């Protein structure tokens, strides 16, 4: 993926140089970059990996999913905090995830911990099992599990080919 990006920038710079204008213009560089996207898109089957903009797209999608989850679960937490009687039942449950590699694991833990209602408390030594503390296990367990699944899928889309 970095190779494709570098190639794209190289095409953009080449385009700017070949246009041979008196002064450097950003608009020419951007035009070259867009052209490079077109060239790379047509050439993508020779690279052996996914077209890199698809990955950028799924990264942006991951960000949007995260923001929507953040707001949904924040609302849940706020209603719990502000309800006159605290009737929450906190607890710790374990979850076995299907991700591999340090980056995927870190990303999932980061996103989960940022989502209100769940904190990753411990990771098992082999990194396969998360121990998650949830604010209200009985009621929000399904919600937490659902958001974990969504995150997992989105992370895989970014990192896997």
């Amino acid at each position: 993926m970095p190779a494709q990006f570098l190639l794209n920038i190289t095409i953009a710079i080449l385009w700017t140089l070949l246009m041979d204008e008196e002064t450097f213009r950003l608009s020419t560089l951007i035009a070259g970059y867009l052209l490079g996207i077109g060239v790379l898109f047509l050439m993508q089957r020779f690279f052996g990996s996914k077209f890199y903009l698809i990955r950028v797209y799924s990264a942006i999608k991951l960000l949007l999913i995260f923001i929507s989850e953040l707001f949904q679960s924040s609302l849940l937490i706020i209603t719990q905090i502000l309800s006159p009687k605290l009737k929450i039942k906190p607890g710790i449950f374990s979850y076995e995830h299907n991700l591999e590699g340090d980056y995927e694991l870190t990303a999932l833990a980061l996103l989960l911990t940022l989502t209100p209602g769940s904190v990753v408390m411990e990771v098992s030594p082999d990194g396969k099992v998360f121990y998650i503390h949830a604010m209200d296990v009985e009621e929000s367990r399904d919600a937490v599990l659902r958001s974990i699944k969504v995150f997992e899928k989105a992370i895989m889309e970014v990192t896997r080919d």
Partner: protein
Amino acid sequence: MIQIVEGFGVFLILTGGIMAVISAIGILRLPDVYTRSHAATKSSTLAVLLSLLGTFIYFWAAEQFISVRLLLGITFVFLTAPVSGHLITRAAYRSKVKLAESSTEDALAEVLGNPGRQEKKKPSSSDNEEK
């Protein structure tokens, strides 16, 4: 048009302030360190996000000033807040802070052999003597 965007920024800042107050209430009301860390790390992350984003939008609309520093601030709060939350709860569990009374399950107990809740189930006499 600019007025509307400015108003939106101000609205975001206001919401961020309200979120901060709510998370402070949460820290006061919740029963134990684990649930409090939820309020301390999460809601305040959202509060910081909203106020910084509001400031960013306001200055963008009012003075056409795009502040990269504010965006960097959001990024780093998002990178550091979960790490601190994770470490606080982890350290608390390792130093055997008990879970709240209302806790229902503790999957970590069997792994770490931590007495978090088991101790509470059998209120031993030694516990009372200590008090």
